[in-house]
């Protein structure tokens, strides 16, 4: 039983990580229908920025928790800026082009950023000053680390904040309108470019937060670390119904859980196979994903 | 032949009853108008006939064969072709190619034939091209065969829709608001074209809000309101029917 619950906690944590990345994916997708391959790189850049800022602050003798807080904010800001630059340079000029052209531009950006990180940060991984967040507590036969709590809490917190942002604020409404019809939203006075840039910034900020969490939780960051979680998060976003924030969260949790339980009970080498089979199975019966709005584009 | 019969068709979308017990028929050589207020369910009738939506009850038959439950391409293969209220051409294909696609169900060469370019494939290809060109000519688009369809002006796109439907060699043609977005003189040309179509022995079911057009060419009119048939009859009768005037025509 303990084993089961421990795996459940593992699944929640991993799912939380995927969800954090998937939230950004889904927001960007929601607004310009772009599978932003570079999103995984924002995640990696966030992880590195975390190391850089936190190590520097720690070296100045700042209290660990303050380090963490400031580092988190700075890294999120940094990635937001990075994302805005990427959007401006690589995506905005292609607004009118076919979607595959943008997809490819995103792929090129992803390769570029990944190698940029490698060149500036070195090929070796970087270690987080993990002492900051090491530790946890024993609950019966279970061991729960503080990082696990933090990841799950942060995910839930951001989910709530984002939902409020998108559904309750003016900006959110503008985001949804821009997503649905860019020309019309210009005709009611929305600057689509600003809204899209903002969405990228928010998405990348979320990815950066995820990068730091991952760095702290697993101890190291590497320049290529964005790729695999990027794909999983993409899968999570689609599973939940791409474009839907709550869906991304649910999708992330499902993928995380399936992976952990497949690894814990069946076979860890085939865990991804199970994750993808669940994904395909769900989509087979619900082609728009779990929370996907059934917008019927077949109306004739 | 080409007898289309709808029998107690009902369609439901979630809680919304879009069509309730709709029954009417379309006989050989007829032009029938289907009118009614916005959201009455006219397009839904088309969608049920062509297999886009499933009827929740009731059946449609064509020449005695049941067509409800068939996939759209099977319905077309039986001889029922349609146009769309919101233009649905293949935007990046030329006018001619748009029509050639419609010949798909009237041709049969497979992968092997296509790769080997067998003599029968070449013959068939030539036939497809000729038939399609004839459909374009018929709608007066003959010299626009090589234009990309999305570059055509709106009115020509409407006509291309009809040409494409004709290219599938149908016996029955369903037209969904063919005159929308046309000015009165263009509508008149359209009416003439539809007249020629019936001369080919094709019967027509038409949804249209332009009363001049409807009254001008329909033999019979069916009126829907909130998914229910409220009247059916000859144009003169319909024009005078108080229920129709109240729900639809006004004044």
């Amino acid at each position, binding site marked *: 039983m303990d084993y089961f619950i421990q795996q459940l906690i593992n699944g929640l944590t991993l799912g939380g990580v995927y969800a954090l990345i998937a939230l950004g994916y889904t927001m960007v997708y929601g607004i310009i229908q772009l599978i932003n391959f570079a999103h995984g790189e924002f995640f990696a850049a966030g992880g590195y920025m975390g190391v850089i*800022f936190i190590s*520097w602050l720690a070296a100045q003798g700042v209290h660990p928790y303050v380090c963490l807080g400031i580092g988190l904010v700075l890294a999120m800001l*940094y990635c937001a*800026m*990075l994302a805005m*630059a990427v959007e401006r*340079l*690589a995506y905005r000029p*292609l607004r*009118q082009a*076919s979607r*595959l052209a943008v*997809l*490819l531009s995103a*792929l*090129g950006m*992803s*390769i*570029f950023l990944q*190698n940029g*990180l490698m*060149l*500036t940060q070195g090929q070796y991984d970087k270690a987080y000053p993990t002492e900051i967040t090491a530790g946890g507590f024993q609950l019966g036969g279970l061991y729960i680390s503080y990082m696990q709590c933090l990841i799950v809490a942060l995910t839930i917190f951001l989910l709530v904040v984002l939902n409020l942002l998108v559904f309750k604020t003016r900006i959110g409404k503008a985001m949804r309108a821009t997503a649905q019809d860019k*020309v019309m939203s210009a005709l009611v006075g929305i600057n689509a*470019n600003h809204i899209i840039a903002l969405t990228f910034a928010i998405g990348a900020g979320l990815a950066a937060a995820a990068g730091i969490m991952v760095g702290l939780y697993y101890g190291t960051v590497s320049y290529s670390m964005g790729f695999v979680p990027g*794909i999983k998060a*993409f*899968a999570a976003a689609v599973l939940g119904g791409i474009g839907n924030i709550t869906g991304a969260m649910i999708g992330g949790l499902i993928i995380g859980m399936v992976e952990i339980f497949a690894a814990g009970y069946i076979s860890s*080498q*085939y865990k*991804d*196979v199970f994750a*993808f089979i669940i994904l395909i199975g769900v989509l*087979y019966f619900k*082609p728009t994903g779990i929370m996907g709005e059934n917008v019927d584009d077949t109306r004739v | 032949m080409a007898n289309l019969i709808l029998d107690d068709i009902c369609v439901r979308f979630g809680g919304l009853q879009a069509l309730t017990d709709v029954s009417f028929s379309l006989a050989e050589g007829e032009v029938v108008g289907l009118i009614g207020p916005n959201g009455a369910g006219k397009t839904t009738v088309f969608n049920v006939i*062509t297999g*886009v939506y499933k009827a929740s009850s009731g059946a449609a038959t064509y020449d005695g064969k049941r067509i409800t439950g068939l*996939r759209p*391409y099977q319905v*077309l*293969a039986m001889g029922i*072709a349609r146009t769309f209220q919101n233009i*649905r*051409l*293949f*935007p*990046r*294909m030329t006018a001619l*190619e748009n029509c*050639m*696609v*419609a*010949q798909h*169900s009237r041709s049969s060469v497979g*992968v092997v034939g*296509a*790769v080997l370019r067998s003599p029968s494939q070449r013959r*068939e*290809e030539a036939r497809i091209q000729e038939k399609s060109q004839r459909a374009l000519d018929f709608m007066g688009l003959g010299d626009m065969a090589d234009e990309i369809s*999305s570059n055509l002006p709106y009115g020509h796109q409407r006509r291309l829709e009809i040409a494409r439907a004709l290219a599938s060699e149908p016996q029955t043609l369903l037209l969904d608001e063919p005159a929308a977005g046309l000015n009165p003189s263009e509508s008149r040309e359209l009416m003439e074209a539809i007249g020629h179509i019936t001369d080919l022995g094709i019967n027509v079911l038409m949804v249209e809000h332009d009363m001049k057009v409807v009254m001008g060419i329909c033999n019979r009119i069916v009126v829907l309101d909130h998914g229910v048939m409220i009247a059916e009859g000859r144009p003169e009768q319909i024009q005078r029917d108080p229920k129709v005037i109240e729900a639809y025509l006004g004044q």
Partner: protein
Amino acid sequence: MTIQESKRLWVSLGVGLFWFLMLLWPLLGIKPGGLEFSETWAVFSKIAVAAVLIVAVYHLRQAGVLDFIGTPLVKASEAVGRGYQKAPTWLLLAVVLAAALIYPQFAGRYGNDVAISVLIYICLGLGLNVVVGLAGLLDLGYIAFYGVGAYAYALLSLHFGLSFWTCLPIAAMLAAISGCIIGFPTLRMRGDYLAIVTLGFGEIVRLILNNWMTLTNGPNGILGIPRPDFFGYNFASLSSLYYVILGIAVFTVLAVYRLNHSRIGRAWEAIREDETAAELMGVNTFLLKLLAYAMGATFAGLAGAFFASRMRFVGPESFTFLESAMVLAMVVLGGMGSIPGVILGVLVLVALPELFRDFELYRMLVFGGVMCTMMLVRPAGLWPAKRVGRRSEEME
């Protein structure tokens, strides 16, 4: 260019450079030991100078100062274009084919090796072009079929001693069958849902190849796969292998061309343009989408079987997502739906990394940047299919 526009250009360059500096400095300058500026400055100044130069050249060109260089060039390229249009297609094709036939005589081992890669990718690219370019189905797991073809030949030849030429159609068929298997559940999905499912399938295939020890020997791969032979003649040398793949590639080009210009190709394009309308115009979309996957997979299967025989080794590393993405990049970069475009895309994307080998560590960085830039400069591809240009609202 008005003064105002020119001012805006320089201002945005300034903002851009400042922004870049803000992004660069934390990466290079913040060290636990302290803050540094020299390294950042060194990198930044180089890039800034380059950017200023580029903008200046652009500026001059807009202003017409550089017309004396540009105009003759444009004229020359137009003349070439005209000549190209005048020459009959068959002549051009004959020249290309002749060049392809005598190529190994002039190329060294490395040249042959690269040419073989190019030809393999041409088969892959054209196959994917059927799925993505013609039928409009975004497939991110395409390389799985290549893997199926490769392993099919490897296993059949090693376990059953079948010859390359027997295996080639079998491999193609097995790939086609797996194409149908993958295609089936995705038929109800659209757009990007399809993308992730195909990506998932690709990963599943790779993981099975990597983990099913008894069948595939897992990560160790399969060694000692025989080279093709033909009535006793063994295609052992690279140049003779080149002719084998050239034959397969020519077949692929021909087949894809003819399919494209048949009722089947038209039906695929109709599905790409508007699936619902296509079905309503009599196209059995279900069957044709499945057929698109199967045909695409067939060409990948052929290429895969050849790949196995040429490497004499297959392992799961050759069939990763990145490989799928690469093939997709070739198709899109070259020009979706256009056969010469895809071939050009393959040439460019195979050649680029080779050209950039000397950049060593910077190679992939440059590669990614160039890929991005090319998309920006030619969003419809290097050699777009004839039919492009969508009725679009014009907006900044």
